[in-house]
């Protein structure tokens, strides 16, 4: 991983960490202020804005690390050539899917520019913008993974990632 993509990954990591830490701080501040009888209403709205960005940036980070859960119990039984064909098909479909989300997400964001978010005057478009932006990052990541599968015939299905439950 070098050059532009590495810089992108580093930036994504910094922003995602800041979003998560900010989210925790804001919810904490909102809880304390509510308990003291002077609730800060906007804190929760901003926390939820940071949350969706953290979720999408984190989803891309997990995709890069190939941590998303895969059920490979059946495909492992297939011959190597079939597995490879499936893997390349899946990741091609995923790139297409993500690019579709980018398009639809941009349309949706445009529709929400005027809509305020919760109790604030901030536009709801900042929330929905996380969808096309996150999908674009994931499309880039998925395309790079696809290229890697294409180049290296030894890459195959890994067993599943970690479940959070």
């Amino acid at each position, binding site marked *: 991983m070098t050059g532009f993509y590495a810089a992108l990954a580093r930036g994504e990591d910094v922003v995602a960490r800041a979003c998560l830490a900010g*989210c925790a701080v804001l919810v904490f501040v909102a809880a304390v202020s509510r308990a003291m009888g002077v609730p800060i209403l906007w804190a929760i709205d901003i926390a939820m804005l940071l*949350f969706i960005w953290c979720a999408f940036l984190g989803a891309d980070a997990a995709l890069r690390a190939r941590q998303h859960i895969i*059920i490979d119990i059946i495909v492992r039984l297939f011959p190597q050539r079939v597995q490879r064909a499936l893997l390349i098909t899946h990741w091609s479909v995923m790139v297409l899917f993500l690019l579709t989300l980018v398009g639809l997400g941009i349309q949706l964001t445009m529709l929400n520019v005027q809509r305020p978010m919760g109790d604030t005057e901030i536009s709801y478009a900042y929330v929905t913008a996380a969808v096309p932006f996150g999908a674009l990052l994931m499309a880039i990541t998925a395309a790079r993974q696809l290229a890697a599968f294409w180049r290296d015939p030894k890459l195959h299905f890994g067993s599943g990632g970690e*479940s*959070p439950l």
Partner: protein
Amino acid sequence: MTIGLTAFFLVLMFLGMPVAFAVGVASLTFFLTSDTIPAQIGVQRIASATQSFPLLAVPLFVLAGNLMNASGITDRIITLAKVMTGWITGGLAQVAIVVSALMGGVSGSAVADAAMEARILGPAMLQNGFSRGFTCAVIAVGSLITATIPPSIGLILYGFLGNVSIGKLFIGGVVPGLLMTILLMGTTWVIATRRGYKPDNPTFPGVMHLLRELNHSKWALLFPVFLVIGIRFGIFTPSEVGAFAVFYAVMVGVFAYRQLNWAKFNEALRHSIHDIGMIMLIIMLSSMIGYVISLEQVPAHAAQWIIGVTQNQNLLMAMLVVFILLLGMFLESTVIVLLLTPILVPIVIKAGIDPVHFGLVMMTATTLGGMTPPVGVAMFTVCGLLKTPIDEYTKEALPLLAAVITLIFTMAFVPQIVLFLPNLLM
């Protein structure tokens, strides 16, 4: 339409597409081919799925769990568990179960607990002569305790999707979690006695030693007490408790144990981001399927059908538990919660079953799905880390799984096991 959509999703998933994308691709195909519903609605659902205050508890408890590991709380829990139970027949296996129970009070994730124990306790258990299959089975099945004792990510999702009080669900998890601990320790004791597995320590290290370790672990042990009190007196909502847990872990790590530094803090943040990204992508993309399910009034139809089959609460409970256990063998736990909660909660309410009672039964059965072969993420994680074939695991896990399944049915038929504490306190 729902059936076609679900079938498409299942085909993609079993052909090895990442679960989040399988659900996303199937749902978006539905929206794109529908003449009546604009595709933007699907994307709208993805964004609005995150804009819910109760759901904020998920990232916050994930972060809190990772911070507790980084702050030294986990190490002290393991030392305490060794002093408490290392001298009992079954030694380190008993320690593993007690660690799951103690971790349960600070962490909400079975898989995180299983992975941690497989890394830290697993190698030591193998060295002490436990078989690989048994080591993996005790760690994987034992980690279900962590997901049952509050906080619990699974119960947050159930409460969020079914519109059930997360606070009551948390408090309802205390008694089942403790019963599960006793039951699994008993089962382990029987197996260990038969096989002659040695204790870790020959004798009980003494009351003074135990008190000293209790004192070292006091910050970990006090946290669940604060959590229950905070929720009981309505001081904090579960999301707020999540933020409080983050703050608490940082304070304990920096001031009490002096183990948490800037680098470890950032590492915990980074680890959490990966976990959150993974779970949230499934939640966000499956919210599109949730729209279709409610659009076609699947819950209402399913309720009508099931109520037509039986009106008997116990029979209904038994049927649902069997159904969930069977699904759990093949589907990933998060997917089961996301797909079934909106359908099942209206059904049980209509049948007169308390949704808090059902929540604990359902989530215990669902999370157990992560430990039952052939597909189970907790099982994959532990067996992967300890390089154990699934068939060796399966053979050794059977008695432990049987014990837990017995408990689930007992919980299903005796609501008081779950409801006693929340009714007493709230």
